[in-house]
């Protein structure tokens, strides 16, 4: 099990109702973690439209998560 800190921004922050949380989870990758959080909190953004950052750097969806990591999910940016 990993003990993680998660920060939320923009639409995810609003749908979560808070900007940060701590979590103990069996999820070993950002993809698995997002699926778990999406099921729990009803996030409308599908996992394939959300990028992940671990400890302040962009990370692959299947990157390994370790206890103590800060995970941020990046909703689509404004673009244009």
């Amino acid at each position, binding site marked *: 099990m990993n003990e993680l800190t998660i920060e939320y921004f*923009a639409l995810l922050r609003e749908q979560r109702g808070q900007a940060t949380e701590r979590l103990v989870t069996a999820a070993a990758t950002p993809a698995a973690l997002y699926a778990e959080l999406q099921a729990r909190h009803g996030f*409308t953004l599908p996992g394939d439209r959300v990028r992940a950052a671990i400890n*302040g*750097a962009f990370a692959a969806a299947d990157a390994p998560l370790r206890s103590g990591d800060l995970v*941020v999910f*990046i*909703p689509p*940016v*404004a673009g244009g």
Partner: protein
Amino acid sequence: MFRISPTPLELPALRAPLADARAGALVTFEGWVRDHNEGQAVQSLEYEAYVPLAEAEGERILAEARARFGLLGAVAVHRVGHLALGDLAVWVGVTAAHRAAAFEACRYIIDEAKARLPIWKKEHYASGTTAWINCATRPGPATAERRG
């Protein structure tokens, strides 16, 4: 130098670090809050950023531009917070000996910034609804599909 700013952008301070007797050209881009988007009347905008990653990625974009276009200087600053119509949301300024490099680099920086920085935009419409741009997944009265 790339920064996220929670306070209004002041043009003289943004330009100051770019003064350089070797420079023949300064090209600047300003993004302003405009009163419409995709046919809807916009009343204000909120910008939110994941600041440490936005600043790190912004510095990477500036370094790419410097290396690729042979710039003398490059500065970019993006506002966060609740902005009114006409407010300055983003400023990019680049200097070079000649103008071709300055134009191309300025365009590169703002295009990459819009595509890569973790900065989100929420539009507040005259109709009273709001939308996070590019985040809607099901059209509806308050979250109509929008592309920025």
